[in-house]
């Protein structure tokens, strides 16, 4: 088995971390998806060197790794911005305004789907744009994701303001999550290396609490454990 990846721009620390990911699993190949996330966190996309490094560690051919990398939409063959903006245009978000948000951002950034906006003079950060499928936040429609953090209940205007704040390098926080990190930093979390931001943001957003708040107001609860008819039959 190969132990030394071929000519690679990945440093020893990264190679060590790739091995560490593979070692989490009973069979090393299970580590491939998070390993590819780590490659992206270091190199900003799936690179030939990254594919070869994963292949060498897992004793696969580069073609086998490439075949996996091309299947999943989160793996990018070209660079994205420091902030990758995803606008949900699946049916519910599209109807609620996602189509309008995506159209406005394309126009404002002067790019098409899956492209990086030009870094203007004075911009300290870059943004890219993509339309995405349902991201499981439908009660916050229309939803925008930035580096896979929730930006809930957007409008075309709020989305334009947000991308401008991001390009200017201002701190922007998820509407129910942490201060946004860069796309590469987020990819590192997906590879299984926590970044210490877990305690930022609330327990739940407003919509998540809709039913619970009504239950609290009206004193509604699940049956108490004491009310469980464990020893005697229920009275109905």
């Amino acid at each position, binding site marked *: 088995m190969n132990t030394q990846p071929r000519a690679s721009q990945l440093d020893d620390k990264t190679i060590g971390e790739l091995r560490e990911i593979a070692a989490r699993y*009973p069979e090393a190949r299970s580590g491939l998806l998070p390993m590819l996330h780590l490659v992206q966190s270091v190199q900003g996309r799936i690179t030939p060197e990254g594919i070869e490094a994963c292949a060498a560690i897992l004793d696969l051919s580069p073609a086998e790794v490439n075949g996996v990398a091309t299947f999943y939409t989160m793996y990018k063959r070209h660079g994205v911005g420091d902030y990758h903006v995803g606008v949900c245009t*699946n049916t*519910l978000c599209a109807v609620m305004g996602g189509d309008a948000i995506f159209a406005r951002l394309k126009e404002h950034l002067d790019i098409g789907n899956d492209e990086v906006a030009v870094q203007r003079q004075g911009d300290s950060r870059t943004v890219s744009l993509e339309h995405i*499928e349902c991201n499981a936040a439908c009660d916050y429609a229309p939803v925008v994701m930035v580096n896979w953090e929730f930006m809930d209940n957007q409008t075309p205007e709020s989305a334009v303001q947000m991308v401008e704040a991001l390009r200017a390098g201002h701190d922007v926080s998820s509407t129910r999550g942490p201060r946004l990190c860069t796309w590469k930093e987020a990819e590192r979390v997906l590879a299984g290396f*926590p970044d210490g931001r877990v305690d930022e943001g609330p*327990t739940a957003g407003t919509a998540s609490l*809709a039913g*619970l708040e009504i239950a609290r107001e009206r004193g509604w609860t699940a*049956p108490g454990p004491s009310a469980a008819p464990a020893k005697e039959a229920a009275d109905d």
Partner: protein
Amino acid sequence: MTDPLTPVLTDLWDAEQGWKLATYADKGGYEALDVAFKMSPDDVITAVKDSGLRGRGGAGFPTGMKWSFIPQDNPKPKYLVVNADESEPGTCKDIPLMMGNPHVLVEGVIISSYAIRANKAFIYIRGEVVHVIRRVQAAVAEAYAAGHLGANIHGSGYDLDVVVHAGAGAYICGEETALLEGLEGRRGQPRLRPPFPAVAGLYASPTVINNVESIASVPAIVKNGASWFGAMGTEKSKGHGIFSLSGHVMRPGQYEAPLGITLRELLDLAGGVRHGHQLKFWTPGGSSTPLLTAEHLDVPLDFEGVGAVGSMLGTRALQIFDETVCVVRAVLRWTEFYKHESCGKCTPCREGTWWLVQALTRLENGQGSEEDLDQLLDQCDNILGRSFCALGDGATSPISSSIQHFRDEYLAHLSHGGCPFDPAKSTAWAGQEVSA
């Protein structure tokens, strides 16, 4: 008689730092673990069977029965895999659950793994939710530090390791065998069944795959008893479930209620359809469940009730659309989604979803003729039941159900020469526009 809403899994969501072990433990968290360890694994399976818990990921298969299919005389290791790949359009319950109360999932994983005699469990979370992954990673780390995971848990002699695994963007990985392929580091394409995962799943070993909400429901069942759970819900659909209201409703969000609640009751709680508008169509459980209309407001939202009107309870993802929404536009967009997410393994789905998009696009643009509707239904007929997995079946649901309920609206596109609707009227900010 139970209350209309029954917060169990959502009960911790309004707590300060609900994701912390200390918060969960204050509410009795990890006590169910000791109850379980005093029982034999088989007795835990029996308790979950007796509770009537059915899979909360959409299919509704009895959870305890699934566990009992694991052949304990098979010498290979057993595995538990949690399906946290929540991606079905409209479905948005597991994500807030893992964000706000990840420890109830972790405790459920431990008890469920103990029951099936697994010493290794995986939580496969879709990759596009970084903060949710942070919360689950931290919960697992806290559970290790507190001795709830690792070797000889609570002095029981039982060992369990849990790996949190991030996916990489593929709806198909919500299908359990495609998920296993992804977890083995391969393209996420479904496997032929049989053998079912209970016999040959992860690494060809006996494997249970359960939805997040199913596993998270286990601790309270073990702690409070099967009859406590069964006191909620209906005869064949027992217990509590999270109902997700989205779209044109005054107060969208998560409502945890006994199975069998109706959309009318839920809409009453949620303040109704947005003011000045009427319900036009809705999905009971995500885009793969056939559309329903206002005539179905009083259908009990349980597996039997929704099945009886020709749809499926699915994931209780109630997407509400009012009369401003063009059903053809809605269905075309879902169809484009299925086309994009088709894994390419089988011909009916790979080719069929492309055909469906072409036919629907023509109709939405007012081109073609009424015969195209029959051709569309014929295409659906060649996909439904002929695809390798449920993705192809699901792709046909919105089409055939929308033609059933709204045939005239399709025809209106033809007579109008295009879509007669104004999409601006459907947006969240419609009617609130201020002049620039």
